């Protein structure tokens, strides 16, 4: 089935929606709607039919608009008579012919007789829900009425279609009523405000609808699993909190008010969209095309804040007033402390004692932001142990506290929720690459993996694009076989850590082992369940990079591009030394964070 997205209004938004490649884009030339279109249409791919929507408009005016905006279709939403439709099909005043779509509004019943006189004078029908205004009323009509559809003319189905209707649409598609259904027409259910479409939800709608097996293969299922990995292995003490979240997170994220607040903060506070930067000198050096997704330019210096903004809004919706978090490199701790300051909520960050020592600037930042930093003194005194302490805190404070997990780990729904908040990264990459290269899909997307949140966000909208290859970069520490490593996909076995079933480094006896990496953010013995699945299915290629290769790559980027990356990110950058790409390949890499916090480590390492 084709897709028409109607009620477009804003230039940027039109371009973003066009990047999703709908078959029709609708512009409403009717002044009494808030979606009234009164600007210019940017240049669009010729595969997208620009459609003008009119309501009982003067014919000459319609013809003028068709010519002015180079419309390929008109949609007539009023009581336009058959001769009116016929005029549009036959007039010589048009530079090019247009498709004529005649709309009929359906309420409790519909007398199909009325179609008879339109059979010969239009190209398609469109059935919409009858409401106060022509279109955009936000609810569906009873599609089973179309069982009595007497014609063989193809039609558009419209009225109140949104992400919640995917199941109904699937059923409809299997029924006889859909035999002549040519396209779906969507509008108000995908809006942040009238005329402004929510790209993420639109994409999700399309993915879900495409019923693509691949899609289902890589996304979380209803039980919270990615293949064999995921789930929620939590003590009963955590059940009420995690269950509350599970039941509400999609609802809350799907709420237009939530999405609006989230997008607004990402834009005005975080500084999104983050640039997609063509790294010319780096590309020349490796004889391929490298784009860097500049998450380092976000407020607080890493991708982590995309997630904390989302989760703090989530916590507020759930009525929580106390926030806890774990942190490794301190980036997530800073990002959490930041949003807590922003919202005036109490913030407690758990951090391994070793990490407190190697990431001192971030500890100071958190304190300045008003957070309390509590050292985790058990185990290896790094990220794993900080996570244990945060979970214990949550057990002890089950009512007023929300736990902002900083990576795509933990019990379901955390991995999926964090992934969705981070998916803004790949959402932007798609339209940014389209702008710069004329295509949405690169040949490779690559990212470093600690728990896997920047990677999950970078991959998300490419998971189902078969010709986009995925590279995941883990920390090899002193070497995969050295006993001092954090390369989970190589060294890990299936097991349970922090509430989910995934790959983790452990002894034969099932005790979790202590990882090692120079980078605090990658120093984790597990990996998010999505990545465990990507590894097991071979969808992603996993590479492990040693401390020394990473440090060299960090220095190289600094010298070649004037960008000092976080040591986590340096691991991803080091793949170019180990893997040869073709000259024409486009590699998009997540530049997950900046190196300010690591300066002391760089100084010590290179004796600068």
């Amino acid at each position: 089935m084709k897709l028409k997205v109607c009620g477009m209004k804003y230039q940027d938004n039109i371009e973003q929606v066009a990047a999703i490649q709908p078959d029709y884009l609708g512009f409403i030339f009717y002044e009494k709607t808030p979606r009234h279109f009164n600007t210019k249409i940017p240049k669009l791919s010729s595969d997208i039919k620009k459609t003008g929507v009119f309501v009982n408009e003067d014919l000459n005016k319609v013809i003028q608009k068709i010519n002015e905006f180079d419309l390929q279709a008109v949609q007539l939403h009023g009581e336009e008579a058959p001769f009116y439709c016929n005029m549009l099909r036959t007039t010589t005043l048009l530079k090019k012919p247009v498709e004529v779509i005649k709309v009929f509004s359906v309420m409790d019943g519909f007398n199909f007789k009325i179609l008879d006189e339109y059979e010969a004078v239009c190209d398609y029908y469109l059935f919409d829900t009858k409401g106060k205004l022509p279109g955009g009323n936000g609810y569906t009509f009873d599609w089973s009425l179309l069982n009595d559809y007497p014609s063989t003319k193809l039609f558009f189905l419209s009225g109140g279609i949104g992400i919640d209707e995917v199941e109904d649409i699937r059923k409809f598609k299997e029924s006889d009523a859909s035999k002549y259904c040519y396209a779906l027409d969507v509008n108000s259910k995908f809006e942040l405000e009238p005329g402004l479409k929510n790209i993420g939800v639109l994409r999700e709608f399309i993915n879900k609808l495409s019923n693509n097996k691949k899609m289902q293969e890589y996304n979380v299922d209803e039980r919270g699993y990615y293949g064999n990995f995921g789930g929620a292995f939590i003590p009963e003490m955590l059940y009420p909190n995690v269950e509350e979240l599970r039941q509400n997170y999609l609802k809350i994220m799907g709420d237009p008010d939530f999405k609006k607040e989230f997008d607004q903060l990402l834009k005005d506070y975080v500084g999104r969209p983050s640039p997609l930067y063509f790294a010319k000198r780096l590309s020349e050096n490796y004889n391929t095309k490298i784009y860097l997704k500049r998450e380092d330019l976000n407020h607080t210096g890493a991708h982590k804040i995309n997630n904390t903004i989302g989760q703090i809004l989530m916590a507020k919706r759930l009525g929580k007033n106390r926030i806890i978090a774990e942190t490794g490199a301190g980036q997530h701790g800073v990002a959490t402390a930041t949003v807590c300051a922003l919202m005036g909520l109490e913030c407690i960050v758990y951090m391994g004692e070793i990490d407190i020592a190697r990431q001192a600037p971030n500890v100071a930042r958190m304190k300045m932001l008003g957070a309390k930093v509590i050292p985790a003194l058990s185990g290896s005194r790094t990220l794993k142990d900080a996570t244990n302490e945060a979970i214990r805190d949550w057990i002890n404070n089950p009512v007023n506290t929300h736990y902002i997990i900083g990576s795509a780990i933990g019990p379901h729904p955390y991995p999926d929720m964090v992934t969705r908040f981070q998916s803004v990264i790949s959402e932007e990459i798609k339209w940014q690459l389209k702008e710069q290269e004329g295509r949405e899909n690169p040949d490779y997307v690559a990212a470093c993996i600690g728990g896997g949140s920047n990677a999950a966000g970078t991959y998300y909208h490419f998971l189902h694009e078969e010709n986009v290859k995925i590279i995941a970069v883990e920390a090899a520490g002193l070497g995969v076989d050295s006993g001092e490593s954090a390369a989970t996909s190589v060294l890990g076995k299936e097991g349970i850590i922090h509430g989910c079933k995934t790959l983790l480094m452990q002894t034969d006896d099932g005790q979790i082992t202590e990882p090692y990496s120079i980078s605090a953010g990658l120093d984790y013995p597990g990996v998010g369940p999505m990545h465990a699945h990507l590894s097991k299915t071979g969808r992603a290629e996993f590479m492990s990079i040693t401390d020394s290769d990473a440090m060299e790559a960090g220095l190289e980027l600094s010298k070649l591009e004037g960008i000092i990356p976080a040591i986590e990110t340096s691991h991803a950058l080091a793949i170019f030394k180990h893997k040869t790409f073709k000259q024409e390949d486009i590699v998009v890499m997540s530049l997950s964070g900046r190196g300010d916090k690591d300066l002391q480590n760089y100084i010590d390492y290179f004796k600068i």
Partner: protein
Amino acid sequence: MNRIQTKLEEDKKLLSIYFTAGYPNLDDTTKIIHDLEKSGVDMIEIGLPFSDPLADGPTIQDSSTQALKNGMTTEVLFNQLKNIRKSVNIPLIIMGYFNPMLQYGVEDFCKKCQEIGIDGLIIPDLPVDVYHEEYKAIFDSYGLINVFLITPQTSDERIRFIDSVSDGFIYMVSSASTTGAKSGFGNEQTEYFKRIDNLNLKNPQIVGFGISNNRTFKAATTYAKGAIIGSAFVKHVTNEGIETIPNFVNSILK
């Protein structure tokens, strides 16, 4: 009938003690079990140590870390317990986190428990839903009772589900906390104990968390069938060694 079920039918309030296997020394396991039984304890939870015990506070964490350092593993524990049923009659339960059991193989683990004469398991991070769907059949076939936790935040509906899946007792966590975090009970706990008592569940309840002396043992068993002491016992062993176990038990039951 499983030993746990028989025990629960006795007309008395039950005292169950938790200890970490392999602590303070690797080979203390059987002596601790014998001494606890001789001192009049009704049931024992043998803690299989785990590197990352999420539901436990510092006392049990530290004892677990030490036990692992001492060389405790699943295999070592099973070996230590090999002949335990020649001399011990009270119910024995293994309490541990799910990952070590998963690595051992859930079925192999259950089989071994049956061979030794273990009566039940408490696995805090194996949720009742997962157990019910994936593992109950295995546990049942080896005659093992799995014990589930409830907390003051657990809804009545879920408690009824847990009750329906259980066939021993329900482990009633006295307050929302990790082990050893709080001691003593307030009004809130009394209300909660009453609420659960009024649900008239098919399984008796045994209260755990926050019990450390005779007073709290009495308070916990006013409404419930029994009480479990963990951290307080581990602390006793840490401070006094394992020679004075009867003193500890007497002080609870006096």
